[in-house]
């Protein structure tokens, strides 16, 4: 499942970068995240997230890692999560560039592989719901950064 989007954030690039690469800041923006723990500062973190696709719900235990960091332009995150009967792998990349009037353009892509029960039970809802969740996440992050 390939998702992508662009968000314009009214904040300088370094501020956006600092926010989006800090798991403790980012986590509260992500829908369903219940807990986050930094394992290796600036690199590895662990999270628990409850995700629902319609009536199909799962609580994922996940590990995330910033595998590439090119401040303040590009970051690549790899994450793997397990839920009973399901597993998910995410490879996400974000690209920051200067937007008009001191804003920051953020382009993001995500390649998500979901296997198991969740994929079987929610196959047809997965892409639209994931896109919506991602949009919710970036909207929340944008709001926090801009405030």
């Amino acid at each position, binding site marked *: 499942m390939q998702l992508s989007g662009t968000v314009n954030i009214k904040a300088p690039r370094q501020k956006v970068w600092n926010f989006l690469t800090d798991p403790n800041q980012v986590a509260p923006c992500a829908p369903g995240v219940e807990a986050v723990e930094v394992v290796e500062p600036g690199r590895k973190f662990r999270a628990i997230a409850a995700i629902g696709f319609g009536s199909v719900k799962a609580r994922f235990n996940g590990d995330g890692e910033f595998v590439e960091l090119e401040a303040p332009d590009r970051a690549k995150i790899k994450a793997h999560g*397990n839920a*009973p*009967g*399901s*597993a998910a*792998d995410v490879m996400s990349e974000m690209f920051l560039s200067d937007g008009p009037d001191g804003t920051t353009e953020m382009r993001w892509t995500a390649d998500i*592989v*979901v*296997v*198991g*029960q969740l*994929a*079987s*039970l929610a*196959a*047809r809802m997965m892409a639209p719901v994931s896109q919506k969740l991602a949009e919710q996440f970036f909207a929340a992050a944008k709001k926090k950064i801009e405030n």
Partner: protein
Amino acid sequence: MAEINGLGHSMKRKEDPRFLQGKGNYIDDIKLPGMLWLGIVRSPYAHARIKNIDTSKAAKIPGVAGFVTGKDLEKYNLHWMPTLMGDTQMVLPVDTVKYQAQEVVAVIATDRYAVADGVAAVEVEYEPLPVVVDPYKALEPGATKVRDDKQSNHIWHWGAGDEAATAQAFEAAATVVKEHIYIPRIHVASIETCGCLANWDPINKHLDMYMTTQAPHAIRTVLALVAGHVGLSEENIRVISPDIGGGFGGKVPVYPGYVIAVAASVLLGKPVKWIEDRSENLQADSFARDYHIDAELAADKDGRITAMRMKTLADHGYSDSQAAPSKFPAGLFSIATGSYDFQKAFVEVDAAYTNKPPGGVAYRCSFRVTEAVHAMERLVDIMAHERGEDPAAFRMKNFIRPEQFPYHSALGWEYDSGNYHAALQKAMDMIGYADLLKEQTEKRARGEFMGIGISSFTEIVGAGPSSQFDIIGIKMFDSAEIRIHPTGKAIARFGTKSQGQGHETTYAQIIAEELGIPAEHIKVEEGDTDTAPYGLGTYASRSTPTAGAAASMAARKIREKARKIAAHLLEAAEEDLVWDTNKFYVKGSPDKAKTIQEIAFAAYTNHPQGMEAGLEAVNYYDPPNLTFPFGSYICVVDIDRGTGQVKVRRFVAVDDCGTRINPMIVEGQIHGGLNMGFAPAMMEEMQYDEHGNITGGTFMDYLLPTAVESPRWELGETTTPSPHHPIGAKGVGESATVGAPPAFANAVVDALWHLGVRHVDIPITAPKVYDLLKKHGAALEE
């Protein structure tokens, strides 16, 4: 005096009072003291290495009593099992999983809630491996190997017919048509899922195995063969198959859950119950179909079929665990020449491994007949259209003629009897074929798309003659044992096992016909290996052709003994006695008679000196040939050009299954069969995504027709008895499922042929039809 209700009587089903009042006794109704529950942790990956299994959190859940892993079973060499087709299949994996939803760890707990919590708490760490989903790609050089223990993903090659002569006939043909036809993977989706209750008694070394099986005796023998080394001995294994809520082939295979339950019961010394949930049933149990067919048909300048050729790729998932007779890797696919008279044919099938659940089963189809019939009936229709001939007339011209029976087909079968022209003519008369053609022409002129589809199928059922048919070496006979009680009532037991077909009624009617004992006085029992005579079970429409025949033959043995007793009672010579319905009378003196009830009483109270007391018999019937039911179906559809919706306006089904034992039950079987032909034709398909995730794992995504979608069926019949069956009967349980799909497909293509549409693969969903309409510029858009 109760009515005898022999052959041809639509007596009400004896089993229905208990079914209709919720008093059936299904596997989940059986409860034993101290019973534990078994649940299964399944793989989310279609292909992965197991790095670690951690049960520590699950073990802390109240009620969780234990776990079984592949490594536990490996100690007893029970982590794998043989399949009926000579392949192997994992019971529980030791290191790798091969399909999504494969069993990984079993959890045992004191109740169903605790077991579900335990399953959710087991943590398994996997290392994903490349996944093979497409069977064509599986056979490409360099493809990821699904099985480490095999040379490649190619399982076997099978062929029948004369390749060279067929090629010659194709070269000489005036018209050749070709089509690639995919018969998708589907699931039997019976109302009741699979399950079992294993009860090992460690003191007496005895196993009671209650399970949802269509073949209890075969299971008993397999258990004894596979687990003999750990103390399971056949005399101490009792397999009990209680009421079954639909089988359709899906309850023939041995699933890992059954074996794990036995192992758990042996390890813990307690009864262990395993009941699948709906998703487990859909995702992991054996599938049906999944044949990719390249089919070709040749005809001469007069439109006579001269040759047929089919090259097929069969997707078997990660193991060839088909439920088919040992010598028939592609089942009875060689029935593919169908109802037509030509002598050059060549069919071949290659089987491939993929990362999908293993199988497949004959879903209401006697071993790959559905696939063969669909391909042939599509070809015949394409040929007729291509030549500009009416599909009905084209069939009539090419049918095997009644006087040609017994007919030897190009691929080696001897068809027992048939009258294909009569069946199609009857269907045409019932539906008003000529008027429909006129209506279609008028509608097409107005831009309305109406289609008429015909399917004239020949089935092949009743496996089978023991010279050819066996399962793991056990010949495919079947059995009946009849005991007449002193008061003239009877009990009859069989090696088959009803899953809702009505055996308790129809077998009683066969015996009623032979002996004159009212069917309601004959108790029929199946499914307990301690009491029933050995048999190979019920699937592939074999019960009436085999065990039904055994019932006749056993009853006739009893009648012969009854004649001796009657002669003694009437003080007459045996050869002077005449049998009439339910009594023997002295030739010329009909009032000097003894009824079967009087004879039965005498068999225990006043039998002749020197004769053994009692009145009972057993018969193991080995049929001399299969039976070949047939029929002609005509379907009329209207296609909505705005949505692609196909509306089935009419469906006439004329079936010929030889002698009808209980016409009402036959009609019920045909109704059910037609619905199970409609469903895959228009709705059902098991789909997998690129990661091997099954995307039809619930009834939200795997579509079954409800009463709303189901068409109205109009039934007709012709009767052409089987010449070799004792009562002339043929199997009928599967005819409609086999024969119906091409009628729908042919109707849809007929509606769209003038646009340039030659073929559409089933299931024919509205989006698929709408895309076709769009592609050919015929869709109505807003």
